[in-house]
């Protein structure tokens, strides 16, 4: 990314999380980034009211948002053909990092997942990633949302590869590489058990 500074002035954020203390912290983090309008709601019904009342630019939604779940709520937004905010950027926030959870968030049409507890750097980097990395939307019989097979051309700080990760040292070549026949034989042996 050539420029990872984001300008949040004038944007309206909606935080949907039943934990009001968490929402307050999240709100203060966004304001630290320069956001000027942040709305907090505590369940999906309040979230729908806020979405229809205000011009929300980005939704931060808890995975366990009552009464059903953040994924269910996200899916309901994405699947409603009449919904004017159907393509709204949505970040799912969860403390459950199991692959099934991440896959669920992706499949319901979320743009990205933020792991709780949220740190300022992780939130900033995900917002920057959404801002600077355009993704096509897919409308199919079974899915509506950002393309799930997107290519990451260099991670922003904190997404996937961590900022503190060291580059790997690759040793000098000490012998000839395997020929295709060698590789085929290895795979054949592995397949045959």
């Amino acid at each position, binding site marked *: 990314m050539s420029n990872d*500074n984001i*300008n*949040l002035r*004038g944007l309206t954020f909606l935080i949907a*999380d039943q934990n009001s203390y968490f929402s307050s912290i999240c709100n203060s983090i966004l304001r630290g980034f320069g956001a000027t309008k942040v709305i907090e709601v505590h369940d999906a019904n309040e979230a729908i009211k806020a979405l229809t009342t205000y*011009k929300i630019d980005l939704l931060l939604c808890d995975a366990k948002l009552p009464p059903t779940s953040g994924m269910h709520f996200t899916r309901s937004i994405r699947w409603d053909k009449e919904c004017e905010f159907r393509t709204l950027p949505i970040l799912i926030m969860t403390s*459950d990092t199991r692959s099934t959870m991440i896959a669920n968030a992706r499949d319901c049409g979320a743009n990205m997942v933020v792991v709780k*507890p949220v740190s300022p750097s992780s939130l900033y980097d995900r917002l920057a990633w*959404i801002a600077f990395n355009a993704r096509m939307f897919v409308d199919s019989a079974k899915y509506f949302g*950002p393309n799930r097979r997107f290519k990451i051309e260099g991670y922003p700080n904190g997404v996937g590869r961590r900022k503190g990760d060291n580059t790997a040292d690759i040793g000098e070549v000490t012998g000839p590489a395997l020929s295709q026949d060698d590789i085929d034989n290895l795979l054949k042996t592995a397949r045959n058990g």
Partner: protein
Amino acid sequence: MSHGTLNKAREFFVDSRFQKMARRPGGMPREQALKNANENVDAFKPEFTAWLDDRLNELFDAIPNPEAVEFDKLEWIDAADIHSQQLADVAATMDYQFVSFVANNLCMIFEALKRGAEHNGTIITCHVDALRLARQQQYRGMRPEDLPELSDGLRRVLNSPSLQPKVDDNDRSRER
């Protein structure tokens, strides 16, 4: 771009207002934004211990005594799960990383109980004791890796056979 049919996916480009606005020049430099955000988070810290004590007390009150009849019922789990979730979501941001770790473990235990795992008093009690320990000032700032024996012990508990569902959904459908 072509319009989709029932069987064909349609792809289209979306440049949302968020994306357009966020890319405008004149944004705050990242380091400054993080500094401001961290200062805002720090402003919560003086009052956090009171919030933490309240949530912990609510959690402890929600969990029945393992000897009591209520312990084997499901009614108390939702409330206890909400309190643990709140602790897990917030404590690490406020420098109580170990509280978040233990509370997150508890959430997974409650989830297992909801799925039909055995109500094991020892497992819950050892997590409650770990939370009482983690709440103390001297454990503030400690991460699970700073307390390897305790953390590994709690992780092992999560894999205990007693937390596995007694009968899985496939077995139930076969029984029907």
